[in-house]
């Protein structure tokens, strides 16, 4: 039985890495004695599949994960028991059982929306300048070597409304992090510091030429936070 779960992390838990959060979640499921399915073989692993890793320091209430149970469980019971085992500031919001054959999260999440609060005033000009560029290449260490990515191509949309900066960034084919973009803008503008409060507000999948929210098809998951 596959279930899709919407969860979030805030506060101090923002600083967990993706790797940390996976083991925290696995343990809370053990504590909750949920009938989690394991892979067979030499070294059994729990059947949990995460969507897209949330960068360290970001908050979110719209993260998704899929997990497989060995026996069916009502969604609300799954949510209640799963949530009870999580540390404060990690929250399970909703769950829905998936029909057979649903594509994995990893293959369906193509982009995400972010909200950056208290954006600095100088951002307006820097942002406009950045968005006018055709490309902006950055080189980062990657698996022992280096990799060059087009940061500009990964920013699908950006808008500033007062102190609120909204960005839509690609996750596929390459994931772009808003903080990397902010760092570049800060460098272009010659300004110090950057906001630390970044929230991921939506996970998106491509549909035709546009993007739609990933959990559109699962009404149960769309619980107001």
């Amino acid at each position: 039985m596959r279930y899709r779960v919407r969860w979030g992390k805030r506060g101090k838990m923002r600083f967990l890495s993706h790797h940390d959060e996976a083991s925290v979640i696995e343990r809370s499921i053990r504590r909750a004695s949920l009938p989690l399915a394991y892979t067979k073989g030499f070294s059994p692993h729990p059947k949990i599949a995460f969507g897209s890793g949330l960068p360290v320091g970001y908050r979110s209430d719209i993260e998704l994960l899929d997990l497989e149970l060995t026996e069916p469980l009502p969604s609300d019971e799954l949510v209640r028991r799963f949530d009870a085992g999580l540390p404060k500031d990690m929250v399970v919001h909703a769950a829905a059982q998936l029909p057979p054959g649903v594509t994995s999260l990893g293959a369906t999440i193509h982009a995400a929306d972010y909200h950056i609060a208290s954006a600095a005033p100088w951002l307006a000009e820097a942002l406009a300048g950045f968005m006018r560029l055709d490309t902006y290449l950055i080189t980062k260490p990657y698996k022992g070597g280096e990799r060059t990515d087009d940061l500009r191509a990964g920013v699908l949309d950006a808008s500033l409304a007062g102190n609120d900066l909204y960005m839509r960034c690609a996750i596929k084919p390459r994931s772009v992090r808003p903080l990397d973009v902010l760092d570049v803008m800060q460098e272009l503008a010659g300004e110090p510091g950057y906001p630390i409060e970044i929230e991921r507000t939506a996970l998106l999948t491509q549909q035709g030429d546009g993007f739609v929210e990933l959990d559109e098809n699962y009404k149960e998951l769309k619980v107001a936070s």
Partner: protein
Amino acid sequence: MIEEISVWSQIEPLLPRVRKPAQYIGGEWNATIKDPADVDLSWLLVFPDAYEVGFPNQGIHVLYEILNERHDVMAERGYCPMPDMEVQMRAAAVPAFSIENHLPAGFFDIIAFTLPQENIYTNVLNFLDLAGIPIRSNERHEGDPLVIAGGHAAFNPEPMSAHIDLFVIGDGEEVVHEISDAVMQAKSSRASKQQLLGSLARIQGIYVPSFYEPEYLPDGRLRGTFPRHPAAPARVTRATVFDLDAYPYPKKPMVPLTDVVHDRLAVEIFRGCTRGCRFCQAGMITRPVRERSTETVRTIINDGLQESGLPEVGLLSLSSADHSEILELVGAVADDNEATNVSVSLPSTRVDAFNVTLADELSRTGRKTGLTFAPEAGTERMRRVINKTVTEEDMLATARASFAGGWHHMKLYFMCGLPTERDEDVVGIADIADKVAEQGKIAGNRNVKVTASCGAFVPKPHTPFQWCAQDPIDETERKLRLLRSSVKSRKVKCRVHGGWAAQLEGFLSRGDRRIGPVIEEAWRLGAKFDQWGDHFDPSLWKQAAETCGVDVSWYTQRERDRREALPWDHIFAGVEKDWLWADWEMARAGRDLDDCRWGPCTDCGTHDLGTTTECHEISADTKIALPLVMGPQR
């Protein structure tokens, strides 16, 4: 109240800029969060190293639970920030903090450091300094926290005696209550720190260094350390908990949110060891053997796994296979966890023919990864000197049984630089590693790997080797080169470590009050994380010793005679000095000594700790056994 004193809002902006920020956030499962306004006394339990190293420490977990069970006390934890975080903290004037409520260390009534080994001393000073607390006891004010320390390194408290207000020698479970009561009493009666120390010094296991004074002979040797305060006993006797079943901790095991070095439910199955390995300080200072009953251990494990969701259980002790009911215990634990993907490991233990059965039992719930033996020395003569009497044939038979049973990787731990060592003993290490590797072929297992690790021996206080000379660095290096070049088998991988780190450990282990200034100077020069290979800088220590006019080799490489007063003579760890001397003479004569659990009582002195039961009443069934550590490979 918490919002007013917590420094979280100052820490938070630093975290996006440091590595592994999760180590600073706290919030572990089962951590206890109290409001300081609700309690009369606050403790900060500090492991003076990185979170990932310090979190698993069992002593802290047990004391944390015991203290937090009291309604009038709160205990939080502290660890050393990594150098990248320290730079940020100093720049932003953020003090050393606790990870529960993120309170500044200076807020607490008591700061308690655990000192598991000696190379951690500079981190203690750095933590105090980061907290804005004067590093020397006599420079601290009435309002500063009481700074205390315990752990195995505290059994020679003298090197840090200028920095620590009081040391707890021995088991902490009961003493922490006595300290809590005394400090609360002093707070409510507004007693001075001197008065408080006076009342604390009367408690068994507590050593107040400022109440003692060393005297030296003209040639620089110690004449003795003498009490200078009416409350100070001439000899401080270790605090000992005799009934471990009365302290069935952890009841609510904490689970880290981020990676730590040992990520498992750790359960102490007994404390103490009477095997009498002469190099082993832990075995000498924790007598007698005090077992937890199988029932208690099972309860702790079953409740603990349910409470924690951890995927692994470690059955801890100095030699876990020596528990009188170990096979039943391991079988029961394996039965209880048959279908849960929980694996069980027995670190710090031993395996032989009997114990291959044990290993197979353990691997029922997990997979067969690696076995680790600690023969410690390469020849039977050398093993008699150190009293770890294992015959070569026993070792090889164990290797064959293990390889035939499907185990592939065997790690072997050795030491070089042991007293009376000759080159043939060093070459013997390579020989035994080669022979163990050959057993794979004999057992029909061609996919065999052997790792032989060899470290430099460091003589420790309260052991029969406390009088002996440590090898100079170049001699250690020569022996380690000889060892490497003597290994023939391609299946054997040799890892060696020695050099300055061992020399420093020896210096700090057997030092007296005169080396305190060297520790301080080394820290001022920038020494910290000295036990981390990539942070340790010997040149700082050489410079510090030179500045202070202290000869490191006088402390490390000098053999002491029977009459010499030792800096820790006024600390009674449970084994009498005369007994240790007799054992040292036997070592030099190449004679071994039976474990008193199956041989006669050797009158080591442990009875004087006040044990009400026989200290050697454990069944003789465990007699067969080889030194070994076992567990999943990392």
